[in-house]
């Protein structure tokens, strides 16, 4: 059914993506698909006093802890737009399915849309939003 699955993970709060990753693993196991986790590093404005930590070690740590059941690769994208970075990653990895979690809607989502909704709308491959 699918051969390359991409799972966006927010390393600052992984609980929304835990269910997405578990679902992606079930599909990947059945299909023998490759699984890539993508995280997005937001660039630091030059005048910021406290620099955002580099996410690469956190991503490595996350990957280390999530290899059970099915192997998972990692990809770190640098972008100011999370949704655009996920779309880029989907193209870069030739993903045919993106599986992503979403948080409970806040007021901002009603005004501007959520990352999940934006990805579902603009990514050229199939998108599974897990709730």
């Amino acid at each position, binding site marked *: *059914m699918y051969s390359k699955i991409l799972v966006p993970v927010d390393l600052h709060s992984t609980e929304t993506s835990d269910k997405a990753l578990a679902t992606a693993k079930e599909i990947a196991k059945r299909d023998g698909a490759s699984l890539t986790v993508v995280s997005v590093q937001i660039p630091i404005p030059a005048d910021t006093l406290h620099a955002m930590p580099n996410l690469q070690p956190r991503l490595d740590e996350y990957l280390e802890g999530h290899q059970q059941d099915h192997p998972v690769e990692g990809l770190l994208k640098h972008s100011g737009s999370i949704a655009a970075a996920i779309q880029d990653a989907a193209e870069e990895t030739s993903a045919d399915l993106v599986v992503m979690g979403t948080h409970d809607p806040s007021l901002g*989502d009603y005004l501007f849309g959520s990352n999940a909704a934006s990805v579902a709308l603009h990514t050229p491959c199939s998108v599974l939003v897990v709730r």
Partner: protein
Amino acid sequence: MFKKIMVPVDLDQPEIAERAMSVAKELAMLGDAEILVISIATQPSSPEGVAEEARLEAYLSERRGALKMDGVLTLGGKVAKEIRYAAEEMGVDLIVMASHEPRLSDVLFGSRSAAVALHTQCSVLVVR
């Protein structure tokens, strides 16, 4: 995995949902789930409603195979809203839909932009 999978189908153009249907079937087998086909015909129930029921039943028996598959007819109104209500009422945990289904487009991409996707309580798979 998912236990109750809803697939919206326009019985006038069932080919649009064919790929969504085959993906739904695979996922149903994976999770031993039940498939619920929701007909999105906008005809109100009347003499036509009876014909719709027969058409839906024919659609189901063509595709059911060994799967648990049932059907629901929407009774006119706003298609997207009907689907969301039916999904909630019937405890659906996943809606599988084609991305280019024009009459369904407002489920995800309605007048208030993509934020409408947030209105479904369950998971959504957009098949491309």
